[in-house]
């Protein structure tokens, strides 16, 4: 009898355990994801102790933060500051799908178990399930195992928002703007009031500091201006993540954008690095957008006509992810200068290899009107001056002139002619045809590059040199960035002195 009772008790206990296991969802196998510096309490406490915290005057609804752990202390300061002004119930973290895992553009994780020194991160399973059910995202747990864009943030979230439930989302490179709009609309309709949206995005990659800084100008102003047309042409690691968060912030009316920090891993190196990563720490708070007038232009030197490969004018150059061969989509002569993922070419708003002769084209970028013109010294200067003046009358904030000299040497007469043209309203003057690179000059507020030297030579030319000129236009005037290049047998390459 006693044995029977014990057996019944045992059976009852078993059933109870089984029921509990079922309720707990033991049928789904959790995917354990370790953080960086896994279990290294000393390291994480050192990171978390970083100070001073970022001082937020208003509570952000969305933030952009890097996942590059070289700046882990800066990330800690940002989170620490956030935790002083918000305590979200739900955190949506959107990251690039770095390894392009899985077929679906938008993926989430149902069973990710992010381990941190403070315990496991809580997932908002209800919201994740709804997102999957509504067809917004596909559950691809295995994608998240390697995805450091999410896992690198897990320890920070757990430390500074221990009770927040997380919705992880990764977006493949191919995720279209239309898909990000649908995703942002869904988030707008489904997120609880007390939420935080994090876009885990690193900015410039694989370029020296100077180039990265040049590209970051366009990235920041594009975000600040909610310039959706430009987002997919930025030199960043996830345009779709930026597209999603900007659309969502606009939907919520959180359009006041502030950048709190701008770093580069070069900041932590004692010698110049040929390949750097940049980071921007940005917050969206309640308010109207503050338009920042801005445009960036990359100007090139002499191009041997026979070698040009049809290089012309590019309004936002875009990398084709499917072109994995070493030949540039644009011209084979850009082989050595394009950089990984065409990063050198992607980050500027305009690339001026060439322009239509005796013509001006007006472009609008971030509320700046720029007229791009090209004249030849052979043609009548008075006609040229007339055309330039007209550009200003037509509303051009800046006139950019590509000017073909007759001679390969610069004379005083040439300089006088240039001065006349400049005075008619040219803001940026780029000379072509002069063999040697000449120092950039300023005439009044105008930038004058009589010659940037060579860019693409004939293949028969063993070696040559030149410069690429980066120009950043803003309400404050013109800022220039000079990138020296060498050209070997026609192929230009960024000059970088290794130590």
């Amino acid at each position, binding site marked *: 009898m006693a044995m029977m009772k014990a057996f019944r008790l045992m059976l009852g206990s078993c059933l109870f355990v089984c029921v509990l296991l079922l309720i707990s969802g033991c049928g789904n196998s959790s995917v354990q994801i370790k953080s960086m510096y896994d279990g290294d309490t*000393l390291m994480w406490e050192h990171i978390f102790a970083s100070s001073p915290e970022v001082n937020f005057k208003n509570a952000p609804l969305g933030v952009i933060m890097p996942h590059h752990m070289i700046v882990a202390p800066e990330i800690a300061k940002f989170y620490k500051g956030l935790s002083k002004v918000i305590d979200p119930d739900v955190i949506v973290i959107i990251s690039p799908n770095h390894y392009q895992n899985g077929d679906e553009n938008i993926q989430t994780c149902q069973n990710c178990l992010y381990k941190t020194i403070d315990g496991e991160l809580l997932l908002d399973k209800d919201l994740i399930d709804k997102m999957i059910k509504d067809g917004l995202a596909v559950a691809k747990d295995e994608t998240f195992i*390697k995805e450091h864009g999410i*896992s690198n943030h897990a320890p920070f979230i757990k430390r500074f928002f221990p009770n927040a439930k997380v919705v992880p989302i990764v977006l493949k490179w191919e995720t279209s703007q239309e898909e990000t709009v649908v995703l942002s609309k869904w988030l707008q309709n489904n997120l609880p009031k007390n939420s935080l949206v994090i876009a885990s995005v690193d900015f410039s990659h694989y370029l020296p500091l100077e180039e990265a800084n040049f590209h970051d100008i366009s990235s920041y102003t594009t975000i600040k201006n909610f310039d959706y047309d430009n987002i997919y042409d930025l030199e960043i690691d996830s345009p779709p993540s930026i597209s999603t968060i900007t659309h969502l912030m606009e939907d919520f009316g959180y359009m006041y954008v502030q950048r709190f920090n701008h770093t580069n891993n070069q900041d932590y190196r004692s010698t110049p690095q040929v390949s750097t990563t940049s980071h921007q720490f940005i917050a969206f708070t309640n308010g109207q957008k503050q338009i920042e007038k801005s445009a960036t232009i990359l100007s090139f030197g002499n191009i041997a006509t026979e070698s040009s490969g049809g290089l012309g004018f590019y309004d936002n150059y875009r990398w084709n992810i499917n072109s994995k061969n070493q030949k540039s989509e644009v011209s084979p002569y850009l082989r050595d200068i394009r950089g990984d993922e065409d990063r050198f070419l992607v980050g500027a708003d305009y690339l001026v290899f060439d322009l239509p002769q005796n013509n001006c084209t007006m472009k609008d970028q971030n509320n700046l009107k720029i007229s791009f013109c090209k004249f030849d010294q052979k043609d009548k200067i008075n006609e040229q001056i007339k055309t330039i003046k007209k550009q200003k009358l037509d509303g051009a904030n800046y006139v950019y002139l590509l000017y073909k000299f007759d001679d390969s040497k610069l004379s005083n007469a040439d300089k006088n002619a240039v001065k006349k043209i400049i005075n008619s309203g040219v803001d940026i003057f780029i000379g072509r045809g002069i063999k040697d690179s000449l120092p950039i000059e300023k005439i009044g507020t105008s930038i004058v590059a009589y010659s940037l030297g060579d860019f693409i030579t004939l293949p028969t030319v063993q070696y040559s040199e030149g410069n690429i000129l980066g120009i950043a236009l803003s309400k404050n005037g013109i800022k220039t960035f000079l990138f020296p290049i060498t050209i070997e047998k026609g192929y230009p390459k960024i000059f970088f002195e290794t130590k």
Partner: protein
Amino acid sequence: MKKNSILSLFVLGLLTTVLVFNGCSIDFGSTSDDTKTTAEQEKIDQLSKQVADLQASLEEQKKASEAKIVIPDTTAPVVVAPDPQPTTTPPSVYSGNSFITMTSPENQASFHEEPINFQGAVSANTVKVGVKASNSGSTQVDDYILQNYKAGNTTFKYGAKVEWNNLKEGSNTYVFTAYFQDGSTKSVSLTIYYYVGGAEMGKPVIYLYPEKTTEVFVNVKPTNGITVSDPALNDGWNVVATPNSEITNLADGKTYPYLFWEGFADNFKTPEEGFVVAKEDVSTFFDAKLSYLGLNEKEIADFKEYWVPKFDAKPYYFITFIDHKSIDAYAPLTVSPAPDSVIRVFFDYRGLDSKVSVTEQVLNKGTRNGFSLIEWGGRLYR
């Protein structure tokens, strides 16, 4: 008289002690009689004066010594300027305090670059200096007696680098111990934080080419653990592989082109022989070598897609391949049924500012026959 006698004995005792401490000896004769003559009293006075002089001298020496020596606190190293001219001959008898202290870096310092150079100072009676390094507060990564430190040196140096297996990402604690002439030891410890950029990782992948579709068990156990695997490795992969390496993972029913893993190996040694390759020739170099080692066109393309872009920062590269036996030691592989041929290609490299001369590595030609397992990977520098 009795009092005087006791005092003189005490003074004599002190003098003897001081003299012996200074490495001298002197015979004072017997003082067994407690009654003192005038001559004896004069001698005592004379000796007392000598003692006073010696005491003063000793005090001066001690003050001078204290000015240089700081007793180290093991939790917070005190910065002391190292002796620029280390003495190489230890004194026969050392009169100062035994100590070890760190000059640099500061305790709790952060680093983003390697190597990390440690410098410290020790008392001249030190015979050797050892260091124990641990990562994440527990995993020991080094236990080493400084080879360039010679007994009597008053400074020491130590370098830590990922490549030397005595530095890892995260927190690293180093305990330096000085061993003194008298057999005693003192230690100083400091913790530094090594930040690394992120998750760019090496990519060892395994292809399986059975002669006919076969169920295969594969497990790999790098000596310091797996960090990432795809599909999830857990206790090994149970897969069905086709002759063209379409691998179906039985755990999730999904198909993979290869099995992917990443991990860390202990005591990794980079061969000195290898190849120096100009940056622009890296791609063709791998074409030739990987083909020779037995990889097919697709495998070479996969390899190059991942690795070649990493060879961009320096004009030249030293490239060396790890021999099969060593790879098996670093990352033992278990496969069932056993393949007829196993090709494991793993390489290490470093960038060079200029061309250097190295002994060319002799590679063994890889051959594939029957059921082949092919693996390629490389050492990653973050």
